């Protein structure tokens, strides 16, 4: 193999050889990292919704609410996962333009993107997106508003459970609120490269 590889491995071995013993791997209890609030939940949605609001996200429980929000802000042109559109299209009145293929040459055209969530984490208000479950990475990222469609039984209570359930998927993303920065004088601004508005839409 490459010389760099041999050099590095050789140096690592030489550096570690003199150690009388190596540091052992600690054993730790997963409960240690679970937030106090997430202990003993029955329905995780209320905590999830509360935590999502705490990071300036928007939890919604009906498509009607979603359409009202989009209409009120004049966000009329969007992208939707082709697998989701048949069940949602009925709620969208005329005046909305929704495409089911994301055209990357027209990024500025889409005000919103609707894709499927693969899960959520209640204690942090986090949405989980996977590569296999997301119809377009760009469609879920580039528009000003992203709506992740979520089922109640997909919500994990806490981070350790979500980590334990990480699927075999090449690109899993945990999204905790809208894209943001505080680079300019520490002032919080939302919508830097990703959505300025992050919505979780509960469908049961």
């Amino acid at each position, binding site marked *: 193999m*490459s010389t*760099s590889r041999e050099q*590095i*491995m050789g*140096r*690592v071995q*030489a*550096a*570690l050889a003199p*150690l009388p013993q*190596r*540091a*052992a*791997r*600690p054993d*730790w209890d*997963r409960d*240690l*990292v679970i*937030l*106090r609030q997430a202990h003993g939940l029955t329905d995780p949605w209320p905590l999830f919704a509360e935590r999502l609001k705490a*990071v300036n996200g928007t939890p919604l429980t009906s498509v009607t609410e979603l359409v009202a929000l989009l209409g009120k802000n004049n966000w009329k042109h969007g992208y939707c996962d082709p697998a989701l559109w048949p069940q949602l299209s009925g709620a969208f009145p005329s005046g909305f333009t929704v495409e089911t293929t*994301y055209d*990357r040459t027209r*990024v500025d055209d889409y005000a919103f993107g609707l894709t499927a969530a693969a899960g959520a984490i209640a*204690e*942090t208000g*986090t949405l989980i997106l996977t*590569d*296999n479950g997301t119809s*377009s*990475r*760009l469609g879920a*990222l*580039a528009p000003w508003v992203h709506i992740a469609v979520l089922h109640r039984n997909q919500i994990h209570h806490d*981070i350790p459970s979500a*980590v*334990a359930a*990480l699927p075999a*998927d*090449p*690109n*899993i*993303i*945990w*999204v*905790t609120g809208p*894209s*943001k*920065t*505080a*680079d*300019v*004088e*520490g002032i919080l*601004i939302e*919508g*830097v*490269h*990703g959505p300025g508005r992050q919505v979780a839409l509960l469908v049961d």
Partner: protein
Amino acid sequence: MATQLIDQFAKNLAPDTKAAVYDGSKKGHEKRTQLLFDTYADPNRLREIAGEIKQHVIENLDTYLPAVEAKLQANGVKVHWAATGDDACAAVRDIMQARGLRKIVKAKTMVSEEIELEHYLNKHGIETLETDLGEFIVQIDHDHPSHIVKPIIHKNRREIAQSFEREGLGAYNDDPATITARARQFLRHKYLAADVALTGANFVSVESGRLVIVTNEGNSRFCLAATKCHIALVGIEKLVPNDRDLGLLLNLLGRSATAQQLTVYTEFVSGPKSATQPDGPEEMHVIFVDNGRTDVLASDCRDILRCIRCGACLNVCPVYRQASGHAYRSVYPGPVGAVLSPLLAGKKFPEFADLPKASSLCGACHEVCPVNIPIPDLLLRLREKGKREGAPLAAAGTPPMGAWAVLASQPAAWKVALFGGKILNFLPTNLIPVPALRAWEAKRTLPEWRGGEFRAWFKNRPKP
């Protein structure tokens, strides 16, 4: 030289910058403390465990590195190794040239700054663009970041607005929302026109080969949605044994860095995009970089390799708050930099031998560190090293102790000196010809000399 280099930086810092750095770091620290203690019964225990996990990893890199290599390859990732910074730069160039690729969009990677990748690639006709807002501003200004997670903590909005105007990003406007919106608009088209996404990784799980990349802005995610080739530069110390460990470390990273429960975008990337996904890299490369890390591993300061680059030690450090990041003259500022930079410098150690002294050893950095690194101990070891190797900077600003040694070891001389000390009270102290004392006295007043009273008391004290 009467003062340390870092004192000069602190002295020359513009008042605006000093205020910005001071407030920014102080606020960051206060928010972190509140969040940690509000949500966990025993945050200190978490820091200890996290430290033990990372210490275990670095002391077993000889097994973990081949293991993670095998896992990544099984996931369809091409693995490269770079013993030096030059090797790493060449590896990036080779990957790109072999495929005829010319344009890189970069999400923040500290390793790329460490190896001066941009400069190298530009020389070879490859364009690089920083996409993190702060790093983008640093790039258009040909400046350097001054903080690990807040790269432009030293700039104010007026300077940024001027830079944007100069770069043709719109008429002068210093509203932070407008600045951000303009960067958003400008950068999204750049992502879509780029060939390669270059990222770092905050953690790499050996068990699954998942690279964990965290950003708040979503820039690394955009890089990975818009381009067809992903190259990740990863320091060899970034491994964690299992996915499970990520649960702990991610909790600590977000809280320690920016007082968030979790950073907004936490990505677990383990290979090229899935077959059904229209967007994103069809190829993924991981370059494991040594560049001095194995020297650190061989030293008695190897604990610093646990560092997860959260920046908490910068925020809490009284020296950093006064001097700002550029005073450390290297990619890694603050307490972590005072340890890491001299070590990574290798043969250039003497150039950074003053940094370990840029600390009052107050211990605040150790207290906040999410992986429990005993930074003050490491600083002391490096001061020793500086002395042992006779690095001139290691002595600068330290009062010469030779005369003291003579006095302290010879009682007769000591007594004479004590008398001399009394005379000092009748002399203007600015006549004392000791440069270090001059520097010290420039800001303080010497107390009245009261030497000898202990001896008098000891001699005359009532005997039991």
